Structures are given as structure tokens and as C-alpha cells.
């Protein structure tokens, strides 16, 4: 409202086919718009977002020399950018545009109340016009983008994203909380439907991330603090004390030719034995350990919670001097432009579904435990046995939807999406490895929607697996044989079944990793109802988040199989690389500004700012008064300071007090009663 020009607003109402016109009288709204003070031109069109639709705006601006544009259509979260471009083409500052949401928040939610919807649409327009009258020219601030990216989580998704970014010439920090990269995929034996060996296809990629010149691999490391904004994130990571020096670290300490070479002598002498989480606790590891032979990096790690600091490992290590029992966590701050979150998943604690007896009966195991038991590099070197007695199971039952599609609150309401397929694969592996073995899959629906998946289903059925369409009611153990009786109904037969199995495998539902919430909040990413991270748009922006410069890859955004995870990882990588390659980003110019004449220098706003963007400075008019001053690069435009300032001295650009008050008045005072 700096310039005292007479406002001349153009209003354009969109039909959106029948999406809007179906429940709102568009013509009526247009006619009404013409009566609103400040409106110089009102028009309507089938699809305002179409080229001709935008053309109307461009022409009208010239023809009626408009000062502001209002489009009444869908949500600004969808098409504000589109129409800002049109406004700009018309020769106006793009921030002279305001949108009235008469679709998502009107026609679609009042479909059966045309009168009420139309009345509301008029108010929506009037409110938008009121703001448009007071809109001002704003110049977006462009900031340089750090030529580096970060990927959090080094499962197959994180690995793929890092390789893509790095190969695109971008310095990439790959952060992994565990001592090795590889994630869940490295625990799998075979992959459906092609049945290629998981390790065989993953290990090369694991090696690549280890040696790629552009990738700085930081395993056994966690996110500590996140500051800054797109293009200029300052991320502090905690490099956990692993107690073992890499060759480089050793050299840095002047131990030439020293450092861990993965020989494993230390582990042999270590007296402390712990279950190995990589083997789902079914195999032991020492207090100084590696997960498995193919770990990347090949560095041993000391579990300081278990270590008794006896020092045997130091002797065993000898001249390499790789072991430092006094090592401490290290905090490192990294500057990056964009980040990709790929934190993956856990299995839900399926023992909570008591009826299936996991952790009550030895011979009930989860799908992941099965993967380790059937894997050649696993604790049984690939010989499937049943835990109770080491015997080879002959009859195996698979319980699908174990905890998925469950609305009881003691389970997950969603479909975990890959259990059907891996259970089919498990069935195949059994029939391949154990001649004469009988396999029963208890399913509700077989969801084989991927490429060559349905064909895989056909193949497994042809190999002799028996599919029983019914969810398992409960599992009971025969106290003598330790066999399991699986009770349920064959719903297609309409008969209850009691199938005696030697081994029962639960296709347990998946859930976000425990750390997800922490990381999510560090980056200001919201979560969807099911607990997974929320994408910017479910259809059109599945990799993005509402935080500019932060992207999602893999299961952390929702259950996915490997192909989908890799695809999304590559999508996220390309999205994350764009601002970095352009080298600069425009920040929406919604900065706070101090109106120094009004500022009493009370300084109350300073602490309110979450980004330390505000400071008290001497006013440079010799008055000696202290006034607030904004560092625009730090300000993200939340307006918390402006909402509080007792003197009304803070001007929130594009959301100024006059603008908002005008909107309120327009709704409550103006227009037809």
C-alpha cells in the first residue's frame, strides 16, 4: 500500500469443467465480482490453467491496465505458480496475483449445496479481491546453492540416490547410522520375481559408493542438528565412536601403514559375545565386530555398550594400531544445498499379535528371519531349519497380511505391499531346496501388481504351492512335537482348516524406523496418517516434501519394493540435483521488515524468531534509538514476530496487517448479507 495508485483488479473465475461449475453458479459469481469495489474486469473460462485461459489474463492486464489479478479456481498450492507466470507475462509483478480457492475448499466439499457453495464462492472472491487491491511488487531474493548434497540412509535407495548425485558431479555425503551400508536389501537372499541374488546385485553398488570420488561415506553416523534453508543447509552429524581407525584416520594420527584392514584378528580374541542384529539375532558377534563379510567400509566397530575394555583386541591388532578404546563421538558440520531422506523401515513387533505365537513358539519366525535362514551366507549357510530342533521343515505355512490391513489399533491399517511377493518367493525357494516340501500360503488377496509379478504368482502355483484364501485365526503349538497347528478358514471352501506345519513364517507388516520422527522433525517434514513421511503431492510430487530442498526416497515415504525404491531414489536424486546445477534458488520474498519509525526497540520479537534472523541495532539516524533489524537470508517468513509485535512495527511482506485486516473486513462487512 506504499504507492497510492487506484487499484484495478481483474477477476477470473474457472469452471474447471464441472469440478467447480457443477456445484457453483460461475456466471453469478462473475456478475457479483463486477460489483466489488476495485474490480475493473471480471471474466470466466472453462479451464483457466489452460493456455487460452492464461492468455485471457495476459490480455486483460494490458487491455484494462490492471494492478492486481484474482483467479478463483483450485488451491494456490496447486496452480499459484502457473498464474504468477501468466501475471508476469502480462507485465505485472508476479506477486500482484491472489488466488481464491473455490474447488478444494468449496465446490468439492459442498457438492450438494449449490446455493451455499455459490454464496461462499462470492465471499472467497471478495476476500481475494480485498487482498489483491493491496498487493505490492515484491522481488524474490536469489541465494547461491551449495554444490553438495546429503543422503540419509544407505540402503539400496540411499545408495542409488548417492551414486546418481555423485555421477552428476555433485559432492554427496552419504550418512548411515549402522557400521555398514546395504540396509535391508543386503539381508535378503534372493529378490522377486527375477530370483537374482540380492547380495550379488547390491554388493557392486556398495563398493561403488565406497570408492566414488564424489561420495563421502559416513557410516556409524547420525543426524544431530539441521539449520539453514534450501541451498544452504548446515547439518551437524554425530560420528559415533567406532573405536577403530580407518587407514586414513590412522595416517592422520601419524600411524603410517596402520589402521583397520579388516583382518578380523581382534574379533577372534574378543571375549564378549552378543547376538548379531544383521542375522536377526540368530548368530553371534563379538563386542568388536563386522555385520558380514561384504561390509562397506570394511572396518571393524566396537560396541562400547558391551566392550569390557580388556584390551585383548589391541594386542591382536598389533602394529596396525587400529584400535582406540578411548575414542569419542565427533560432531561435524556439513554445508549442503539439498538433502534426500531414505531411512527405510522396520518390521512391526509382530509378537504383539499374540494369536500367532511369535516369540511364544520357537518355530514361528518372521520373513526377515527366513531370509537369513535360507541365505547361503546366513547363520545356517543356507540350510533352512526350524529353530526348535534344527530339523529340516517339510510342511511350511506362510501367514500373509500379518499385522497389515489391520484396523484394530494393534496392527497397521495399510497394505505393506511387498509381503505377498516375498512370500511367493519364499515358497519357491523352499520347493527348490527341500524336495517334497509342502507349502501353504494363507492369504486374503495376492497383490502381484508389478511387472512380471502376476506371472511369478502363476509360476509358484504351478510349482505346487497351495494357496488358502483365509486369514489365520491362531497358531497353536503341539507341546510334544513342537509342530504348529495353523487354524483358519478356507473361505473359498467355506470350511475351517487346521494345518499342521513344522515351521510358520509371518509376513509381518512394516513400519517406519524408530529414528524417523527425529529426522523428520529436524527437516520440518510432516508425516502422513499412517506414520510414513509425507510427500509434497501424492501424484505429482512424490519425491518432494513441503520443505524446499528436502526430498524422499524409498520406504520412508511408504511401503515399496526394490524396483520402486530405486526408481524413486533416482527421481529424488534428479530433483535434488536441479537447484544445485542451477547454482541458485529464488526464495519467496515473504520476509519480515521493520518499520523503524514504529519500532520501540523492545526486542520482544528477537527471541520469538526460530531462525535467529532478528537483532537489535542502532538506528542510523543519530537518534541513538535501538531498532529491530532483519537478516533476510535467515528469515523464512513465518511471521511469528509480526504476529506478536506490540507496536505493529513489523511488516510481513505479502501477509501485511492491512492486507489481512482488509480480507477480514471484506468477508464480514462487505457484500450481500
Amino acid at each position, binding site marked *: 500500500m506504499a504507492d497510492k495508485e487506484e487499484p484495478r483488479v481483474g477477476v477470473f473465475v474457472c469452471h474447471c469443467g464441472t469440478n467447480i461449475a457443477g456445484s457453483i453458479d460461475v456466471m453469478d459469481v462473475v456478475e457479483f465480482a463486477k460489483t466489488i469495489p476495485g474490480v475493473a474486469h471480471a471474466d470466466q473460462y472453462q479451464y483457466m490453467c489452460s493456455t487460452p485461459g492464461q492468455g485471457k489474463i495476459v490480455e486483460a492486464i494490458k487491455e484494462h491496465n490492471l494492478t492486481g489479478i484474482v483467479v478463483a479456481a483450485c488451491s494456490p498450492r496447486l496452480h499459484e505458480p502457473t498464474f504468477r507466470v501468466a501475471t508476469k507475462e502480462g507485465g505485472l509483478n508476479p506477486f500482484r496475483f491472489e488466488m481464491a480457492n473455490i474447488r478444494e475448499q468449496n465446490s468439492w466439499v459442498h457438492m450438494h449445496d449449490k446455493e451455499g457453495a455459490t454464496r461462499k464462492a462470492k465471499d472467497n472472491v471478495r476476500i481475494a479481491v480485498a487482498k489483491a487491491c493491496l498487493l505490492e511488487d515484491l522481488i524474490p531474493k536469489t541465494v547461491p546453492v551449495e554444490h553438495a548434497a546429503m543422503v540419509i540412509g544407505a540402503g539400496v535407495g540411499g545408495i542409488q540416490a548417492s551414486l546418481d548425485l555423485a555421477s552428476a558431479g555433485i559432492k554427496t555425503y552419504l550418512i548411515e547410522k549402522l557400521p555398514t551400508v546395504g540396509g535391508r536389501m543386503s539381508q535378503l537372499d534372493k529378490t522377486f520375481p527375477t530370483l537374482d541374488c540380492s547380495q550379488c546385485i547390491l554388493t557392486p553398488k556398495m563398493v561403488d559408493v565406497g570408492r566414488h570420488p564424489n561420495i563421502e561415506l559416513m557410516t556409524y553416523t547420525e543426524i544431530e542438528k539441521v539449520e539453514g534453508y534450501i541451498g544452504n543447509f548446515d547439518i551437524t552429524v554425530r560420528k559415533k565412536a567406532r573405536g577403530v581407525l580407518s587407514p586414513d584416520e590412522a595416517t592422520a594420527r601419524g600411524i603410517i601403514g596402520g589402521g583397520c584392514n579388516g583382518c578380523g584378528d581382534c574379533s577372534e580374541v574378543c571375549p564378549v559375545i552378543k547376538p548379531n542384529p544383521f542375522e536377526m539375532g540368530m548368530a553371534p558377534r563379538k563386542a568388536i565386530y563386522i555385520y558380514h563379510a561384504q561390509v562397506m567400509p570394511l572396518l571393524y566397530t566396537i560396541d562400547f555398550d558391551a566392550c569390557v575394555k580388556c584390551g585383548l583386541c589391541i594386542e591382536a591388532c598389533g602394529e596396525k594400531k587400529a584400535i582406540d578404546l578411548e575414542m569419542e563421538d565427533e560432531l561435524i558440520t556439513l554445508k549442503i544445498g539439498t538433502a534426500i531422506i531414505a531411512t527405510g523401515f522396520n518390521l512391526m513387533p509382530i509378537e504383539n499379535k499374540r494369536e500367532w505365537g511369535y516369540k511364544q513358539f520357537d518355530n514361528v519366525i518372521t520373513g526377515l528371519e527366513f531370509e537369513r535362514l535360507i541365505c547361503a551366507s546366513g547363520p545356517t549357510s543356507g540350510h533352512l531349519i526350524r529353530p526348535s530342533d534344527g530339523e529340516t521343515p517339510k510342511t511350511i505355512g506362510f501367514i500373509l497380511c500379518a499385522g497389515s490391513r489391520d484396523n484394530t489399533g494393534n496392527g497397521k491399517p495399510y497394505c505393506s505391499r511387498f509381503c505377498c511377493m516375498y512370500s511367493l518367493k519364499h515358497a519357491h525357494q523352499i520347493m527348490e531346496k527341500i524336495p517334497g516340501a509342502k507349502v501353504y500360503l494363507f492369504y486374503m488377496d495376492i497383490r502381484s501388481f508389478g511387472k512380471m509379478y502376476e506371472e511369478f504368482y502363476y509360476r509358484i502355483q504351478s510349482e505346487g504351492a497351495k494357496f488358502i484364501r483365509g486369514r489365520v485365526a491362531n497358531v497353536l503349538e503341539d507341546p510334544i512335537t513342537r509342530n504348529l497347528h495353523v487354524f483358519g478358514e478356507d473361505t473359498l471352501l467355506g470350511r475351517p482348516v487346521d494345518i499342521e506345519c513344522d515351521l510358520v513364517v509371518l509376513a509381518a507388516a512394516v513400519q517406519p524406523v524408530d529414528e524417523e520422527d527425529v529426522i523428520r522433525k529436524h527437516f*520440518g517434514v510432516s508425516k502422513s496418517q499412517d506414520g510414513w513421511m509425507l510427500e509434497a503431492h501424492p501424484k505429482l510430487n512424490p519425491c518432494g516434501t513441503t520443505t524446499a530442498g528436502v526430498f524422499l526416497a524409498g520406504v520412508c515415504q511408504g511401503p515399496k519394493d526394490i524396483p520402486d525404491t530405486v526408481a524413486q531414489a533416482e527421481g529424488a536424486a534428479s530433483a535434488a540435483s536441479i537447484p544445485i546445477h542451477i547454482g541458485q534458488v529464488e526464495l519467496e520474498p515473504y520476509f519480515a521488515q521493520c518499520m523503524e519509525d514504529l519500532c520501540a526497540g523492545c526486542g520482544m520479537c528477537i527471541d520469538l524468531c526460530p531462525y535467529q534472523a532478528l537483532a537489535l541495532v542502532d538506528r542510523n539516524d543519530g537518534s541513538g534509538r535501538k531498532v529491530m533489524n532483519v537478516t533476510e537470508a535467515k528469515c523464512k517468513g513465518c*511471521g511469528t514476530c509480526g504476529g506478536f509485535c506490540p507496536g505493529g512495527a513489523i511488516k510481513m511482506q505479502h501477509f501485511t496487517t492491512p492486507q489481512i485486516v482488509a480480507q477480514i473486513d471484506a468477508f464480514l462487512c462487505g457484500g450481500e448479507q
Partner: protein
Amino acid sequence: MTDEWNPKILAIICNWCSYAGADLAGGGRIQYPPDVRAIRVMCTGRIDMLFIMKAFADGADGVLVSGCHFGDCHYLAGNFKAAKRMFMVKSVLRNLGLEDKRFRMTFVSASEGAKWATVIEDVVKTVKELGPSPIAEHQK
């Protein structure tokens, strides 16, 4: 419909959670009464108590402020700082002799379309039970 009284309810909602949630309700075609008009701000932290007072002075029958759940604020804690102010609003309303039920602050996330609809239904219900704002009546 026309002869029946339609309350005038103002909603000031944050761009990242509640506005997105409201859009989601639209995508899901979840129906709710059309008596609420929403104004979008980037964060509920932006909301000056005076905005709400202004709305009531203008004769609003009810005002709704909605933001992210605590801990989910896009700007770390704007919603928390706003909430602290909004408590004050209620006591001011009481001192003015206005039912504080006419004002409400809720927390609706970007994924809670259905919740947004129930919130609106509830707000409208409450306000309809309270009847027109005495201030509005006075202005007539």
C-alpha cells in the same frame, strides 16, 4: 435455506498443515457445511490477536484458528507460540461478555482431511447452538 440464518465464521489457517489438510478433504470429496471462510497465512504464528478481535468486532459469529500439531510446525514452533496467545483471546472474549466457545484453535495436519471436515462440522454446530453474535445483532 436463504431464510435460515447462516453463521459467519472466519478461519485463519496455516499454509503447511491445516490449509493442506483442507485441500485434502476436498480431494477426498468429504462434505461439510459451507459456513466457514478461510484466510491463509504461512504460519499460525503470524496471527495477531487483533485480527481475531477485529473479526468479532466486525460481527463474526465465530473464529477458528488452525495450525500444525505441536512438534510438526513447518517453522519449528510457530503454532506453539500462537497457541499461547490464543489462550489470551479466550479470556479477553470472556471479559467482553462473549462466549469463548465462539473462538477455537485446532491442530489439523496435512494428512487429516477427514479431521478437518469434522472440525468444521463441530465449529459450525457450536456456533449455530450459540446463535448470532450479540455484536452482529447490535450492528443491525
